[in-house]
């Protein structure tokens, strides 16, 4: 059998489709994007080599507003790590200690993750609708008329209004990962600590949390890279407006490509996003390793 299993031709045939698909759609395009980012190019005409001018323009031009978009997505990342994850962790710890209705709570909390972001976005558009949206209707009903706002259309409130559903939708996802971790803590560890008189809080702090640290790390990485990449909900709710108040790198990239036909600049944003995602993933891993 070993001889049959070592034949080069078999290895090649079994691997070829995967390699072609993977390299063709994921790996080669990274190189191609990096290459395009050095050109001024409208997608069909001739390309003009301009070196790192796109990068320079991106970081210095106020008209494009990349730094602001980046700041928005970093703010989302921070909120995700310091608000969404603690909430998810709290739910996971609570559900993880055999509470009545555990399955029901878990399944419902995870549900928003499965619903298409476009659907969620459309629902929230209706919730925020200035005239008929239930948020303003509710505020008027309880006599807080003056709090009613054009949530998505006002510069001051739009960013917050976009962040709320974005953070809400994925609480269940992080909760599920962390819950799986909490459930994998060997019951003996928990019991031993309880016998020694540890309270619930102490068990969580000294037994469960250290045990699920690798999963917390994964959650933090997903929260940060997911925020950097965020697109769908913002595209549906505001598409970066009003006046770029809710712009994030992805919406900016799509606008560069398909509204302004600046393929070089769009590629530049794509490259920066890849670098940022990998950079943050490595940085977060390093921070977690440092702590050990």
């Amino acid at each position, binding site marked *: *059998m070993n001889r*049959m*299993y*070592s034949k080069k031709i*078999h*290895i090649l*045939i*079994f*691997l070829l*489709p*995967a390699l072609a*698909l*993977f390299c*063709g*759609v*994921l790996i080669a*395009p*990274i190189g191609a994007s990096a290459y395009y980012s050095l050109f001024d190019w409208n*997608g069909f005409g001739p390309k003009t080599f301009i070196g790192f001018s796109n990068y320079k323009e991106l970081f210095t031009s106020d008209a494009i507003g990349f730094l602001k978009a980046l700041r928005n997505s970093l703010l989302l990342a921070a909120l995700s790590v310091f608000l969404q994850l603690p909430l998810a962790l709290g*739910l996971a710890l609570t559900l993880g200690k055999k509470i009545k*209705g555990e399955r029901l*709570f*878990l*399944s*419902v*909390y*995870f*549900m928003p993750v*499965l*619903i*298409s*972001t*476009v*659907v*969620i976005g*459309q*629902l*929230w558009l209706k919730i925020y609708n200035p005239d*008929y949206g*239930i948020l303003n*209707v509710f505020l008027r009903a309880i006599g807080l008329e003056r709090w009613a706002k054009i949530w998505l259309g006002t510069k001051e409130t739009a960013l917050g209004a976009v962040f709320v559903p974005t953070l*809400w939708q994925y609480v*269940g996802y992080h909760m*599920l990962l962390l819950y*799986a971790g909490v459930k994998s803590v060997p019951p003996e560890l928990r019991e031993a600590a309880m016998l020694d008189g540890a309270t619930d809080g102490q068990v969580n702090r000294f037994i469960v949390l250290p045990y699920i640290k690798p*999963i917390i790390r*994964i959650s933090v990485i*997903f929260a940060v890279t997911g925020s950097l*990449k965020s*697109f769908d909900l913002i*595209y*549906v709710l505001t598409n970066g407006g009003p006046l770029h108040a809710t712009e994030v790198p992805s919406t900016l990239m*799509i606008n560069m*490509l398909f509204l302004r036909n600046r*393929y070089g600049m*769009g590629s530049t944003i*794509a490259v920066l*996003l*890849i670098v940022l*995602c990998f950079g943050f993933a490595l940085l977060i891993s390093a921070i977690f390793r440092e702590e050990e």
Partner: protein
Amino acid sequence: MNNNSKTARILIYIGLVFWLLVNLFPVYWMFTFSLKNNAEIFGENVVGLPHHWLWSNYASALKTGNMGRYFLNSAIVAVATILITLVVALMATFALTRLIWKRRKTLNKFFMLGLTIPIHASIVPVYVTLSRMHMLNTYWALIIPYAAFSLSMAILVCTGFMNEIPRDLDESACIDGCSVWGIFLRIIVPLMKPAVATVGIYTFLQCWNELMFANIFISKSALRTLPVGVQALSGQYTTEWGPIGAALVLATFPTLFIYIFLSKKIQESFIAGAIKG
């Protein structure tokens, strides 16, 4: 002490039920307003059950809004993507776990890079390539990228399962005169059913809900998938919310329906996709 823990318990439940409602309410609201007319949605009956169940909203979403067509497109793209992903991933996993060669660990790590590569990375080059090959506005424009981006997760899951299949099975099949293909197709693949289900579900959800590629690679309205179709429809019906609600329900229903019956399996597939063995 006893009293204290009882209050704590009640508080915990209040919190849990509150979050339950926060998650259920949008879906409940969507179902109810999909069956109401504007008068009810806009004032008479904002959050209650509909007074008159207006199924005609669904008829307009399907007919005028073309939701049936989008639904079919999404289904075609999803099924084709799942099939391709599975075949390619099972073959690759076989080479990565069974066949004997030097760099297979390295190659496995290479495939795992795909778990972190954002789809943004490939948007421009894939768009340019598709347009040069005149493949924009075809199902393939979505199926191929979706399959490629599902591949890493599929290989990850399949590797876990395939490693559990004892090698003795391969040995005895070989002695019985099976070829490599015979072993793969008759012994290994039939034993991979749990992995196939996990990968299938995960891939289905990814492509059913995907917006960015679907929005850019498809501009012909007859080929739109559900997320793009829903977007288009809501632009069409800005003042009438009932049909939009119906479209939202139609787009969500299959997912929730599967979820009701397979909630555990779906949750497992998400956990498997995130946490490397």
